[in-house]
């Protein structure tokens, strides 16, 4: 290297030094030079002056609002996505759920799905879990009390990256037409949406009152595997959770419409897990932790799959999740109902008013459409989420389904840099066996969180969750992914009855 090029490289380092873009070694080198070299100090000052001159240029806004010409142009283009979306949706028959008797027939043929969205966070607090039987039988008032009194429920819902768009709400934009809004619930809280979109809870209640009643819900609930929790409370990640329920037509499941939907969003479906992988029998499960409080127990072991249910766990960036949600929302032909279940948030909205969790649920809630029976929502409680979350947290999560471990296998980590993964592998999905757990015992096993178990924990222990130790935050690209569990559970001709649902308790 010549002397000139060395000098230039040295001065280039000065420029990067201004921008704080040097490695520690480079920075040390520059600072040593600055300490002894007056020319270097002068050069640094010149570079800083030039930089400052540009920074001080006043901000100027365009003299016209670009939204108008931009929207005019894109609307005029035949190849615009809005035209494509309209063309795609036009051939689909309009769903009449809630409006006509035939709509209720469609509803009775529908399939419930639960979609668990877990925003991986980097700290180490244990997710709140409790006894599933108790939770499914809790009256709303009890749930509300639990949510308000248990700080972990709120802490758990603090998102790593709330996708709400507060800035959007402040934008004064042209009001979309009523037709546009009716077709697609807007994702921003600032945008009005039709009643069925913004009030899935209310719609569900309407349906429950009007839909044909049968025992099919009993089959549905009894089909759940109430697997004693082997969940590790010492799992390394905390997840954000939102549950989304989807009503789907049986034909859509048979046609693998959902798998195709995932694939269209760049989410590849991996091999299906086996029964053994998902939930080892108690005898084969790893031994309890040192505390050895209780052996995990099998509460009930009837798979949802006996009812024709499927479960698909997805790991993908938020954008892919949004795209999936948008398509689910649009595809009323295959999915008559979509409901984001903010089962914790709805119970204590005031406490979460300022948190990102509410915004997250609000954003995803905009994709709600149609009706989903309340008992489906009750069935897929946080207990289930905890179970899958546990499994997603790595191979050390005892007895948890290995799906997450597969997605996060160290081998894959080493083979694929986080950068490459984020650019190439948008998301992955895998079929798993749908099960539900009571994590009470497993949680009690944990030394770290001993006494903090959901339903079994004393009231004062719940408060301790506020001071749970937290792991160092991780900046891995993995943490930017969401984990999504789709549970697809067909029911037969009639919609389930709440009474039947209660039998699952």
């Amino acid at each position, binding site marked *: 290297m010549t002397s000139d090029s060395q000098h230039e490289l040295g001065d280039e380092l000065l420029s990067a030094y201004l921008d704080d873009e040097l490695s520690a070694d480079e920075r040390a080198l520059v600072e040593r030079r600055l300490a002894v070299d007056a020319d270097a100090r*002068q050069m640094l000052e010149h570079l800083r002056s030039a930089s400052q001159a540009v920074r001080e240029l006043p901000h100027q806004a365009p003299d016209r609002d670009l939204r108008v010409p931009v929207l005019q142009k894109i609307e005029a283009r035949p190849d615009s996505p809005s035209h494509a979306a309209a063309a795609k949706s036009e051939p689909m028959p309009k769903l009449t759920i809630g409006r006509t008797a035939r709509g209720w027939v469609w509803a009775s043929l529908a399939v419930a799905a639960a979609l668990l969205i877990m925003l991986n966070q980097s700290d180490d607090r244990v997710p709140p879990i409790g006894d599933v039987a108790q939770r499914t039988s809790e009256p709303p008032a009890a749930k509300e009390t639990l949510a308000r009194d248990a700080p972990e429920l709120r802490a758990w819902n603090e998102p790593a990256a709330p*996708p709400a768009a507060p800035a959007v709400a402040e934008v004064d934009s042209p009001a979309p037409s009523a037709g546009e809004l009716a077709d697609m619930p807007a994702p921003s809280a600032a945008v009005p949406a039709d009643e069925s979109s913004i009030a899935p809870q209310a719609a569900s209640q309407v349906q429950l009152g009007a839909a044909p009643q049968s025992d099919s819900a009993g089959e549905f609930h009894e089909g759940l595997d109430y697997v004693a929790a082997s969940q590790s409370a010492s799992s390394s990640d905390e997840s954000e959770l939102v549950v989304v329920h989807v009503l789907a037509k049986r034909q859509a499941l048979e046609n693998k419409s959902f798998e195709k939907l995932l694939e269209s969003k760049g989410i590849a479906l991996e091999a299906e897990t086996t029964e053994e992988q998902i939930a080892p029998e108690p005898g084969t499960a790893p031994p309890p932790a040192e505390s050895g409080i209780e052996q995990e127990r099998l509460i009930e072991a009837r798979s949802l799959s006996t009812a024709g249910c499927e479960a698909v766990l997805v790991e993908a960036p938020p954008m892919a999740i949004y795209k999936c949600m948008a398509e689910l929302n649009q595809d009323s032909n295959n999915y008559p109902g979509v409901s984001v279940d903010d089962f914790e948030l709805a119970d204590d909205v005031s406490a979460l008013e300022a948190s990102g969790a509410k915004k997250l649920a609000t954003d995803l809630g905009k994709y709600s459409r149609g009706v989903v029976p309340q008992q489906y929502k009750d069935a897929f409680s946080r207990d289930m989420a905890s179970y899958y979350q546990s499994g997603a947290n790595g191979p050390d999560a005892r007895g948890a389904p290995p799906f997450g471990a597969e997605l996060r296998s160290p081998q894959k980590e080493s083979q694929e840099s986080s950068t490459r993964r984020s650019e190439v592998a948008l998301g992955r999905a895998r079929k798993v066996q749908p099960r539900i757990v009571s994590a009470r015992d497993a949680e009690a096993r944990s030394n770290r969180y001993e006494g903090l178990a959901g339903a079994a924990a004393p009231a004062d222990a719940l408060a301790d969750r506020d001071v749970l130790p937290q792991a160092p935050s991780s900046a891995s690209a993995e943490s930017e992914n969401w984990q999504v569990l789709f549970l697809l559970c067909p029911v037969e001709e009639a919609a389930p009855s709440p009474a039947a649902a209660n039998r699952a308790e």
Partner: protein
Amino acid sequence: LSDDAPLIAATLAGDSAAFGRLVGLYQDRLYNSLLRVVGEDAADIAQDAFVQAYLKLDSFRGSSAFYTWLYRIAFNLAMSHARRERRAASLDGMKDNFGNEPVDGQPTPDAGLERRESVEMVHAALARLSTDYRTILVLREIDGCRYDEIADILELPVGTVRSRLFRARLALRDQLAPRLHVEKIVDTR
């Protein structure tokens, strides 16, 4: 990403009004940056960039911020524009917007006038630089982009970003030397 994602998804689902909101969010910032790169054509370039972004939105994978992606489109258009026009950021055009370049940098009693002259001089100095230099200076100094973000937008190695930014600053310093009262360093090395 988190703020934009719902709007992007809604747009992809056919809600063009949602895209209008994205335009509303970013038009000022994008215009302001393009103004320093292509001058009076900034609004047209920004408008074209938004239309292009809309048409390509399905290819946006969310691995980078929407704004970074939008900027890549916009600055590609700006570069193409510069190549076509050869005088994309013509001084004439900029003078139309900002008045005549001051003959000298002598201070005046009027602080407002002095400020205006200073702005005009810096803007004119930028206009004398190559489009590459203007672009990288704008991304760093006006938009505050990190080197890796600039590399992403301009599709350059980070090392190239660092060296180009240094040279751009040197070039601007030379242009501004009279105003900044700095003596141009004669490189005797």
